[in-house]
Each structure stands twice: as C-alpha cells, then as structure tokens.
C-alpha cells in the first residue's frame, strides 16, 4: 500500500472512529429491521449505501411496507432531511478538489460527517482528509446495515439498548460545540424549539424544530443588530 494512502486511511480512522461507534450499531439495528420486515438482506445495503440518511431509512422502511405512494416518499425525504440545507453554511466543500470528489462529498454529507467537520479541530483539515473521513463514515453505516441484515434474527434482543449510542453521540458533539463557542442561550433555544415541535407537531417534529430554530436565530440576530446600532448612536 502506498505510504500516502496508508497515512490517509489511518488518519480517517482516527477522525471518524468516535462517530463510527454510534453509526455502526445503529446500522446493525437497521439491517436487522430490514430482514425482519420481510425484505431480502441486500435491500439493507441498497438503502444504507445509496440513500445514506439514517432517520429517513427507518421511516422509509415503514412507508414501503405500507406501499405508500412515491409522492409521500418524496415529501417525507424532504421533511426529514431539510436540515441538511444548513450544513452548506459551514461544511468545507471548497477545500475538496475534483468534480467527482465534490459530487461524492455533497452526497455523503450526513449528520455524522457534518458533525465531525463542524468540530473546531476540523477547521484546518485539507480536502483529502475531509473526503476520506466521509468515506469511512459511509462504510460504517452501510457495513453495519449489511452486517445486521446478514445476522438477522441471530442478533440478541438486548442489542436494542445500544441505539442510545446515537443519542450519546449527538449530546457529546453538542457539548464540544458549546465549549468552543461560549454561551448557553443557543443550545437552550434549540432545546426549547425541539420540545415545542415535539408537543405541537408530533409527526413532523424534526422539520418543525429546524424551521422554528432558524426563525428564532434570525429574530435573535435582528435583535442584537438593533441593540448594537442603538449603542452606537
């Protein structure tokens, strides 16, 4: 193996290991669910490798089993994944070189990939490093789903509690983002938006929470600007 490639791979492993710990068991859980739903095991690979959006895949499984119309599939995909629109604001796509690499980089811009690259330590990563860690996270998820589908019913029921790893992952990433950007107001507002959306829009809470959070941030920004303008007078 060329030395450059080996260096890239070992660094990508280190960069992505923490989120892989959440993504892989979650993928296994998804794969188990696919075969328990009556689909062939390789559908788990198709879903996880091509769609590559965890929460949507869980929802889509329920939709296709109910033979939902494709329009409903499109609306669900739009609602669940609308949050990705915001990722373009800080994801360092401009450092990724090459048309195919950039296309893949946008395709593989999952929550986990965004989370790792949004980390302050990642602000100086070159494009190669960003791309490789995305490949690794993609492989954890698709590999986990394929593994889970192949293991099928052999996976013990106790593995269910393991999906808390995803909650723990997002919690830890929030704490790290908070440490480097002091101020408790933003996470408190986000939590308020999440709870309000959960109570008001039980079916579309993720979409509602993001729209509400964006609106609250815009209002807060306008307020701060006006106060600054007032202070200058």
């Amino acid at each position, binding site marked *: 193996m060329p030395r450059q490639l080996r260096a890239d791979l070992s660094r990508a492993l280190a960069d992505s290991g923490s989120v892989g710990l959440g993504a892989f068991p979650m993928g296994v859980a998804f794969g188990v669910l696919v075969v328990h739903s009556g689909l062939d095991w390789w559908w788990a690979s198709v879903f996880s490798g091509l769609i590559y959006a965890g929460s949507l895949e869980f929802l889509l499984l329920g939709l296709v089993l109910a033979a939902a119309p494709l329009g409903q599939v499109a609306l669900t995909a739009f609602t669940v994944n609308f*949050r990705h629109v915001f990722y373009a604001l800080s994801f360092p796509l401009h450092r990724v070189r090459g048309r195919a690499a950039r296309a893949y980089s946008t395709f593989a811009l999952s929550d986990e990939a965004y989370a790792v690259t949004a980390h302050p330590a990642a602000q100086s990563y070159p494009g190669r490093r960003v791309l490789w860690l995305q490949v690794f996270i993609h492989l954890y998820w698709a590999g986990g789903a394929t593994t889970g589908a192949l293991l099928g019913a052999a996976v013990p029921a106790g593995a269910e509690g393991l999906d808390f790893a995803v909650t723990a992952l997002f919690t830890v990433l929030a704490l790290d983002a908070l440490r480097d950007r002091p101020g408790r107001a933003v996470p408190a507002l986000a939590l308020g938006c999440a709870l309000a959306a959960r109570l008001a829009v039980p079916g579309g809470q993720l979409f509602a929470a993001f729209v509400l959070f964006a609106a609250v941030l815009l209002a807060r920004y306008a307020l701060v600007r006006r106060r600054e303008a007032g202070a200058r007078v």
Partner: protein
Amino acid sequence: MSDVPAGHAPAAGYLLAAVAVAVAVTWALRALPFAVLAPLRSSPLVAYLAAAMPVGVMVILAAYTLRHLTPRDPGAAWPALLALAATVAVHLWRRNVLLSILGGTAVHVVLASAVF
C-alpha cells in the same frame, strides 16, 4: 418489530423507485444549497447562523432521538434520562468522546435491561 409473512414483500420495481426518489431528494438537499448559500458566506448574518447552527443542530438531533419518551412510560424514560446525565457527566469530566459514548450507552443498556 413488525414481522410480515413471506410473499408479502413489496415488489422490487416499487422498492427501487422509492429508493431513487429518496436518493434524489436527499442528495438535492445536500448539494444544491452550496450553489445558493456559498456566495452569502461573507455576510454577517450567514456567519452568525454558521456559528450558532452546529450546537443547536446537535441539541435538536439529540432531542429527536429521544422523541419516543413520555412521562407516561417511565420504564423507558428513566434509563434514557439517567444515561443522558451519565453521558454529560463523563464528558465534562474526561472530555473523551469515545469514553463518554461507551459509558452512557453502557449505563443505558444496563438500566433498560436489568433495572427498569
């Protein structure tokens, strides 16, 4: 888990179409904003949103993963809340991502399967 009898699985053509729709919508949502938002990177509003967004997005996603919890089902809610507290405590103590996730998940598995 919703086991369905063999022979009732959806047709492959329909499944492929559903996957294609999901891929198209998801990829468009991930790729198109770069063309629209990239020129706005230098604006102070976009800078503010980009700075405030990561922590807020993580909080909302964490809350979303706990959406099934309700006070009416304390047997499911308590393990998750205690495991969440353990995750935060371990992370504030050691600041080690792997350790925090492993610790919090272990607390959850033990509480969910053995205690509650």
